[in-house]
């Protein structure tokens, strides 16, 4: 049984369907990417998990039990549209968010001090939020999300608004939380971050799941049997075995070879090695970005027909 199990969730608004029977299983302790173009239904799904919205149909279970309102204390949620009360003091604000999640005052205060220390924000505890820089506010926001040590963390576009240094620190913190046993659900457009941190993904498009699985699996499924070969020679096409593709705009020196159907990489490399002076080769796996764009485009075409 998955830690977070979403099954056949439907959400309709007047005029359109935001989620048309979405299912998704998130295993405990993994970092799960929820992907999809704007308007695919990611935010709606996340809001349903957070019980901000109610699903019209379908169920959400957490740790084997159907979710109730009391479960929101087990979730830490960093929404895409996020902010803080500008006039509140940093320390008070973090404690307030922690207590809203059900912490006692003493626990919240202790945890707040620990986190402020960790993020080097100790001397800002009694300053008003509006006096902080944008980056510091983002850190305070992050602390407010994790202060109650939730077993399930949901981040919607967590890296937007962070400079590279802070984004790196955030990533380290997220991985540390995962190592401590938290399950993390990521919603993002940023495909590079998906490849770096996510083990599993689900791609939503037009209110439906169009792709799901582990990042490795998905990449294998979408590979196009292309190998990039480094050689000083000019390779001639071999119609039974492969064709030559135009060079990659970035890696101009590589020769890109597309294998014909039924030819495996090993045979092709063996043959090439016998006929040319190979200095290196790599199998070209598609980036998540390519898979994302390709899947969304092809689904959109299907829908239009």
């Amino acid at each position: 049984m998955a830690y977070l199990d979403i099954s056949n969730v439907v959400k309709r608004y007047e005029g359109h369907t935001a989620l048309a029977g979405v299912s998704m299983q998130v295993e405990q302790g993994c970092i799960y990417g929820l992907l999809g173009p704007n308007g695919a239904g990611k935010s709606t799904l996340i809001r349903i998990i957070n019980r901000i919205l109610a699903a019209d149909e379908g169920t959400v279970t957490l740790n084997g039990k159907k979710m109730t309102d009391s479960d929101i204390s087990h979730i830490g949620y960093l929404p895409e549209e996020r902010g803080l009360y500008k006039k509140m003091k940093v320390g008070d604000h973090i404690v307030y968010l922690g207590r809203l999640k059900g912490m006692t005052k003493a626990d919240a205060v202790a945890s707040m001090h620990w986190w402020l220390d960790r993020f080097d924000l100790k001397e800002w505890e009694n300053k008003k939020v509006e006096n902080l820089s944008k980056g510091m506010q983002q850190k305070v926001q992050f602390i407010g999300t994790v202060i109650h040590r939730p077993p399930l963390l949901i981040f919607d576009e967590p890296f937007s608004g962070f400079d590279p240094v802070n984004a790196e620190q955030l990533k380290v913190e997220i991985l540390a939380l995962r190592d401590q046993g938290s399950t993390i659900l990521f919603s993002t457009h940023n495909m590079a971050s998906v490849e770096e941190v996510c083990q599993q993904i689900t791609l939503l498009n037009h209110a439906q799941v169009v792709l799901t699985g582990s990042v490795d699996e998905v990449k294998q499924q979408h590979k196009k049997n292309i190998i990039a070969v480094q050689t000083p020679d000019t390779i001639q096409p071999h119609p039974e075995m492969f064709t030559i593709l135009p060079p990659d705009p970035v890696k101009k020196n590589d020769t890109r070879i597309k294998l014909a159907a039924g030819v495996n990489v090993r045979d092709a490399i063996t043959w090439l090695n016998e006929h040319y002076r190979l200095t290196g080769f790599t199998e070209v796996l598609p980036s998540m970005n390519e898979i994302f764009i390709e899947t969304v485009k092809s689904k959109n075409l299907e829908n239009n027909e």
Partner: protein
Amino acid sequence: MNKLRLIIAREYMSIVGRKSFIILTLLFPFLMIGLGSIPILMAELNDKGEEAQRIAVCDETGHYATALPNDDKFNFLLIEGATVTDANEFFSKEDNGSYYNALVVIPREVDSTGVVNIYSKGNIIPALESTVKSALTDTIENAHLAAMGIPNLQEIIEKAHVNIDVRAIKLSETGDAKESSTDIAIALGMVLSLIIFWFVFFSGTMIMNNVVEEKTNRIVEVVVSSCRPFHLMMGKIIGVGLSVLTQMGIWIVLLGIAGVIGGSLMGVGSTVASPEMIGAGAAAAPEVESEMGSLLRQLMSINFTSIIINFLLYFVEGYLLYCAIFAALGSAVDQASDTSQLLTPVMLLMFFAFYAAIGCAQNPDGPMAFWCSIIPFTAPTVMMVRLPFEVPIWQIILSHVLLIATALAIVWLAGRIYRRGILSYGKKASFKDLFNWLK
């Protein structure tokens, strides 16, 4: 419940903890006194700064001019022996034009026509007109009476003169007669009605702006992932309500302190007299009845317990009813400046409730007053002006029941709009959208 309390505490502190709140609350009474006394100060400065105006008086009758009183404003100067027929000619004469501010001509036939003319090159000061009018009216009237030749006329007139003092006596069911004053009742009702109107209006706009601010701050989704939107809305409404009550409480305390200080300064030993004492005093010496005693007795005739209880109930109910609407409207927009379109009908309703109260004060038992005090949206303000006149108990109960039911329904509906509104960004919601969100 715990979360609701947390939210209330935060909202409350976010208002009461602000420096501007403390300063404004303490300064406001002084500000009001200051603003109130500005016109008086200005008037005094106006009077003191200038020397008395010189007014030429041409008295063709020869005996009324002395009636015009010289004071620090006007100096009436009789033009001896001269008969002025043309005011233009008078002012064009050397010196006169610059020396005199105005010319009062009392014509010979003033006894029959009752007309006196004032000429001036500049604007005629209203104060001059009224001074001349009142002085000459009394004098000429007395002269007329004297001319009739009736002996002891002054005494006769004084004896005949009456000043009717109307006492409104309300007969209760048991036949007890109670003296009541309609003036005091009207004033009391209007003040309470105004307090309800003003505070609901003031808090309502504050709540609305707070909701919009939470949306523009983008904090709202963070908070509603920890609590139900309904709790956030109610926490805000209650928190703002408590802060407003705090402010009111501080002002009442300040007023009390001012009253005690003022009372002791004036040498009145007991400013706060218990009802028993007043009653005993009135019983012991009913014939010695000062105006103050009469006022107190009239005040005592009003059922304060009922009024205070009902005031608090109507305050809370009306506050909930309107503030829930304000919160829902705030949730429907992205920035404060977008609220005006949605706000207009609510404002109209509120101002109607207020003006209905003023209108009903004149006839608190009329059909308009009855219906407006039953209809929930106008009940809080209108019932307050009716209460000092003793309203049948069934009407009060009916009005409360309807108001509570409506307020709860509105709170529920507002919660549904709020829940959707706070998460919708980008497009300005219309009434049609709000209606859709109710579903």
